[in-house]
């Protein structure tokens, strides 16, 4: 029975009683219900596209009641008119073709839905519906009930429909159109023979080519002029200056050639250059649209919360409307949006979003509760102390680092090289001009422009985009998602790595559990496991998973005392499991460790201690990194783990404990002031400041689809040990670029030798330009692929 998998969601079936429908087995009633819905509506081909594609629907009772509030709904809708409304919902579970199929057939499940369209890369579904027949709340409840719970957060409330920037696609289209047609029309000129036919139609062809090059020159290449102008204005020499200069000279010289009837100009090479450079740009822009690198607290926070009015009625209000003194109702699993004081007697709050700490904290009536915590107990009431924007957590975002739109405050490798390239190029051009002017003014002018044209850093400009674009893809395949290509360069420069502790080098998923105390008999273990089965407390779940499989026993008088522990009777034995204070062992509380104590029939037996479970490969990773990097660990926790870490990790790793979020940020800042290039690896919102401040902020995520603070890169937690490999690959990609720069300089030398001697004919330009482009692009692609493979073998 254990080996069986649920037909709907694919999880192992563990329950004793069999849940069956249509001769198919399910792991729980939730999955069965979803199957029933589908089979009733003739939609079982959902299961044909992918095996066990579903997710167990979670209990969402009342969670979306705020969708009754008209003003909130209208903020969420993309479009609203009498009988048509459009909403875009973010659904993290979308992962296969079955998902697309079921979500695009919603109209068969619910009247009033006109159509729905899935955007798979963004994990979004866009639903058009008739608000007169069906409400948004009904739709959200429907898709939640079939296992596709949408993710609605405060972020949705604020962002207006973002317009997609398609200008690069247009520019590329225009450039290709011009390039292709000009190439065709240029052909006769390549075979320059004095023929009657060619002489006769030459003018017509040339002017047509000229006309075709105009849109490419003025529209497609416009980005380079703007960038060049900006960089001159700010006094920085970037690669776009020689490019823009080259393109303009190219165009003027070619036009001049045609007008004066000197030759056919270089329009084919010009448009080809523009096209390939735009193609490189396009190649570099690899976006992981389902990931968000700009998340702040807003994507964690709910959109609305239940408020108790003075007349004791409950009402859903947008959380921006919450004021000091309001009384709020927080249900189980809901997030606390503001700082406040607990009114209800007792609860447990899980601060894992904020601190990365997996174990909930108990709060009593009158205690302060902070925004960002998740309520784990029964329904509670609280009084608001601070509005959303002034709460402890959200204040982190008022730090300057989040305010300024982080401009590129570093020079890219191409820019650095072009700083030497541009002056040298101009020098050669003027030298050539100066030499020829004494011999022939006409040739002097030709040489001057030819130098600028042929040396136009076509190859230089193509190198970085194609290398980085390729590396970006290689890393993305290995679940290391970078925000953009610049991050690769930053990675290569890193010399100091700062790790957060909880959630980053430790894993939240499983704890390392040890037992201390009187030995437990087998019966005792079975009894404990059975009592734990009913509890939803994270510690109970962990301990339950830790204990060996056991038969199911009858549990009597089960009781869960929030914040203390659980107790029950099994076969007449009275079993109590919980905190030290629950079992009357107060002196234990002082020790800084997480433990669950066991008492059977009023006899204290011992405790299970939950140690931090460090990620696999942590020690070897640190040993690898130690040679080349300074490593520091920055933790918000107390010093309880210091000795363990010191014993485990290589010497020289600095450990700093008790750091508040702002202190983490300051710590990074201080390192940077010492001239260090810092990479911060963190997870929770408490690292958000440090991630933003660091040169490269890497966010570790157990599930990349949800929850990661603003950062430069997102690393799937399962690939943590590969961090060293990623760093080495980024370094190698920089050397690939350098190699290819050398290669393109070689081309430039060849081209320049033609240009400076006044021999640059259109046919030579037409050969050199594409040849250099093709070799450079294939060289960098092959080399970066080669290194990604080679380094991998070395690592494993």
């Amino acid at each position, binding site marked *: 029975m254990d080996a069986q998998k649920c037909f709907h969601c694919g999880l192992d079936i563990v329950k004793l009683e069999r849940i069956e429908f249509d001769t198919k087995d399910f792991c729980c009633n939730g999955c069965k219900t979803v199957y029933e*819905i589908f089979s*009733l*509506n*003739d*939609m079982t*081909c959902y299961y*044909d596209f992918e095996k066990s594609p579903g997710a167990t629907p979670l209990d969402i*009772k009342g969670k979306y009641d705020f969708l009754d509030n008209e003003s909130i709904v209208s903020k969420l809708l993309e479009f609203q008119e009498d009988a048509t409304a459009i909403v875009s919902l973010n659904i993290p579970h979308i992962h296969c*073709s079955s998902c*697309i*199929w079921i979500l*695009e*057939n919603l*109209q*068969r*499940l*619910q*009247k009033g839905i006109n159509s729905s*369209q*899935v*955007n*798979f*890369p*963004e994990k979004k579904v866009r639903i058009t519906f008739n608000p007169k027949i069906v409400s948004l709340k*009904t739709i959200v*409840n*429907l898709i939640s*009930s079939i296992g596709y719970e949408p993710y609605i957060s405060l972020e949705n409330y604020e962002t207006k429909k973002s317009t*997609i920037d*398609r200008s690069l*696609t*247009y520019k590329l*289209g*225009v450039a290709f*159109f011009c390039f*292709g*047609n000009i190439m065709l*029309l240029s052909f006769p000129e390549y075979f320059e023979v004095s023929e009657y*036919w060619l002489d*006769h*139609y030459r003018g*017509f062809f040339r002017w*047509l080519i000229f006309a*075709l090059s105009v849109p490419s020159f003025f529209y497609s290449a416009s980005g380079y002029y703007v960038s060049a102008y900006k960089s001159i204005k700010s006094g920085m020499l970037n690669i776009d200056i020689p490019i823009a200069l080259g393109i303009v000279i190219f165009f003027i010289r070619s036009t001049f050639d045609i007008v004066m009837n000197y030759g056919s100009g270089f329009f084919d090479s010009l448009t080809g250059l523009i096209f390939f450079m735009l193609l490189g740009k396009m190649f570099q822009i690899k976006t992981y649209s389902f990931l968000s690198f700009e998340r702040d607290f807003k994507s964690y926070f709910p959109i609305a919360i239940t408020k108790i009015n003075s007349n004791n009625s409950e009402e859903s209000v947008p959380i921006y409307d919450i004021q000091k003194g309001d009384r709020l109702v927080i249900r189980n699993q809901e997030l606390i949006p503001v700082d406040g004081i607990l009114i209800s007697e007792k609860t447990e709050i899980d601060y894992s979003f904020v601190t990365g700490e997996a174990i909930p904290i108990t709060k009593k009536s009158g205690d302060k509760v902070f925004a960002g915590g998740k309520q784990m107990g029964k329904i509670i009431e609280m009084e608001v102390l601070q509005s959303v924007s002034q709460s402890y957590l959200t204040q982190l975002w008022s730090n300057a680092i989040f305010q300024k739109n982080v401009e590129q405050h570093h020079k890219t490798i191409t820019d650095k090289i072009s700083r030497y390239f541009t002056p040298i190029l101009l020098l050669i051009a003027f030298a050539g001009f100066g030499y020829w002017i004494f011999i022939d003014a006409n040739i002097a002018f030709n040489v001057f422009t030819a130098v600028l044209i042929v040396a136009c850093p076509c190859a230089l400009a193509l190198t970085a985009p194609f290398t980085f674009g390729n590396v970006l893809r290689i890393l993305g395949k290995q679940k290391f998602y970078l925000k953009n290509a610049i991050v690769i360069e930053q990675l290569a420069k890193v010399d100091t790595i700062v790790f957060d502790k909880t959630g980053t080098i430790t894993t939240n998923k499983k704890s390392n559990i040890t037992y201390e105390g009187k030995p437990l008999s087998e019966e005792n273990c079975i009894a404990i496991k059975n009592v734990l089965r009913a509890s939803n407390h994270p510690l109970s779940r962990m301990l339950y998973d830790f204990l060996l499989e056991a038969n199911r026993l009858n549990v009597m008088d089960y009781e869960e005392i929030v914040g203390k522990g659980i107790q029950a009777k099994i076969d007449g034995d009275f079993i109590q499991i919980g905190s030290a204070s629950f079992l009357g062992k107060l002196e234990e509380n002082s020790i800084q460790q997480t433990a669950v104590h066991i008492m059977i029939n009023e006899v204290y037996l011992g405790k299970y201690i939950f140690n931090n479970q460090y990620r696999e490969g942590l020690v070897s990773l640190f040993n690898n990194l130690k040679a080349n990097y300074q490593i520091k660990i920055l933790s918000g926790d107390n010093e309880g783990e210091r000795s363990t870490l010191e014993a485990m990790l290589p010497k020289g790793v600095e450990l700093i404990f008790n750091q508040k979020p702002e202190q983490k940020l300051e710590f990074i800042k201080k390192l940077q002031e010492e001239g260090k290039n810092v990479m911060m690896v963190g997870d929770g919102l408490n690292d958000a400041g440090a991630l933003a401040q660091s040169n490269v902020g890497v966010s570790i995520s157990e599930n990349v689809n949800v929850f990661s603070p603003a950062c430069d890169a997102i690393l799937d937690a399962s690939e943590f040990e590969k961090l060293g490999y990623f760093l080495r690959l980024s370094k190698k990609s920089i050397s690939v670029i350098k190699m290819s720069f050398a290669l393109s300089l070689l081309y430039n030398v060849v081209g320049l030798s033609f240009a400076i001697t006044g021999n640059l004919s259109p046919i030579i330009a037409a050969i050199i330009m594409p040849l250099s482009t093709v070799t450079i692009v294939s060289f960098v692609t092959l080399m970066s692929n080669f290194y990604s493979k080679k380094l991998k073998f070395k690592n494993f």
Partner: protein
Amino acid sequence: MSVIYLLIPISIVLAIGFFIAFIRAVKSGQYDDDYTPSVRMLFDDELIQSNVKKPKAESQENQ
């Protein structure tokens, strides 16, 4: 041979026609999502088949 004055413009006009088609395709968002349509086109048969069966479109979940 002066027919070339006619032929070349015709070919250019034809190319411009395709170019306009491209612009319109971009504008209508066809290039925004390049994955989902490739999956969606595989469903069409399924849809027709089940439409024939006339599904009873009743809402299952009313809370």
